[in-house]
């Protein structure tokens, strides 16, 4: 990885963590709107990046968010899990003949494939995080509602940053 690319991803990492902590964790609309846009970083990490490195970066990112939002381990657990299954989702949806090292995006994968991939990742992340936060099956409908609403908002935000042509 060249220094330029490394710099680009480090910048993305910092900006997304700050956005998440300062803006998206502070939306006080309806009491439960809390989209997790930071996952955009893991979503569009180049597939050429070593899988172990992806896990470590995901752990770092989750840990940082945990410290900021007083939720020990919750973001770290969900983020590492999603980063781990990313490869499987990509193998499931992306045709084999596409080149090996690419940044998943609408431009590279096309709208339907990227939609399927992003939806799976985003819904899984929200479900894991909100379940861990509740840490019981009491009032589980609230967790499901939060997952549904926030996944939708996060996906809208993710797609709003994509180039379609």
């Amino acid at each position, binding site marked *: 990885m060249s220094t330029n690319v490394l710099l680009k991803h480090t910048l993305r990492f910092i900006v997304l963590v700050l956005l998440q902590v300062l803006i998206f964790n502070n939306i006080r609309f309806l*009491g439960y709107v809390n989209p997790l846009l930071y996952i955009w970083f893991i979503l569009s990490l180049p597939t050429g990046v070593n899988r172990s490195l992806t*896990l470590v970066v995901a*752990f770092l990112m989750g840990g940082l968010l*945990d*410290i900021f*939002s007083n939720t020990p381990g919750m973001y770290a*657990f969900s983020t*590492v899990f999603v980063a781990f299954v990313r490869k499987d989702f990509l193998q499931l949806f992306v045709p084999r003949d596409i080149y090996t090292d690419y940044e998943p995006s609408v431009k590279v994968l096309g709208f339907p494939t990227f939609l399927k991939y992003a939806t799976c990742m985003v819904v899984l992340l929200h479900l894991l995080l909100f379940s861990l936060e509740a840490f019981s099956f009491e009032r589980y409908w*609230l967790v499901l509602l939060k997952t549904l609403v926030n996944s939708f908002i996060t996906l809208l935000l993710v797609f709003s940053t994509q180039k379609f042509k």
Partner: protein
Amino acid sequence: MRYGVYFLFVILEAISFIFVVNQNSFQHASFLSSSNRAAASIYNAENSIVEYFGLSESNKQLSVENTELKNRLVQIESQLSQLKDTTTKHPYVVADQQFQYISAKVISNSVNKLQNYITLNKGRLDGIEVEMGVVNNQGVVGIVSAVTDHFSTVIPLLNPKSRISCKAKRSNEFGVLVWNGVDPDYVQLEEVPRHAVIHVGDTLITSGFSSIFPEGILAGYVTKCSKPENKTYYSIEARTAAVFRTLSYVKVVKFNLKEELRTVLKEGEQ
């Protein structure tokens, strides 16, 4: 080496999960909470920008409080002059010095989680300690859970870990104020027996049983009140007195006789 990734995955997930499961014991580890220096200073910087947008609201609250204080002053002055008339040498008024207030600014706050936390810009060096009560000019806010030198973390009413002893102002019936995680404007009063007299519209105030809050601080107003057939307790919902969405300035309550009260309670148990 092929299984290295799986090994790493399991280890990272195990570490995170241990943190999740033990979250209660990590609550007091302030380096892992938002009162940690780096996190708190970023929140501080954010607050110094965002604060301007809430200035008019804060101003309004301050001026309301100001008028109330002025009214109290006039009242107390008149009482004092009466007392001075009757007792020329030793006025029998001793100021209530048991509780002191330390004012602080909220630098981070949430209402959209199941477990919400507040971070304040004052800490150990300003005299704040763990388990002190936090109020604002509207009513009860929460209890301090972790302190560093310059910052502190508060568990507000809007957190299932918070249990605050309250009573109805009119009938003196006791209960415990908790939050069910659904609506940040409403909390629940539990453990009120069925024979108690509680009505919609009653005012809830702190009971003053613990050394955390003085007696009589506003906590909420009863909005729903029913006796479910199969329960031994009332089911009561109350609107919080403090508006958590727009918290800006709070006061930390310091109880000067805390140690003394604790010793006397301990001796009483023996």
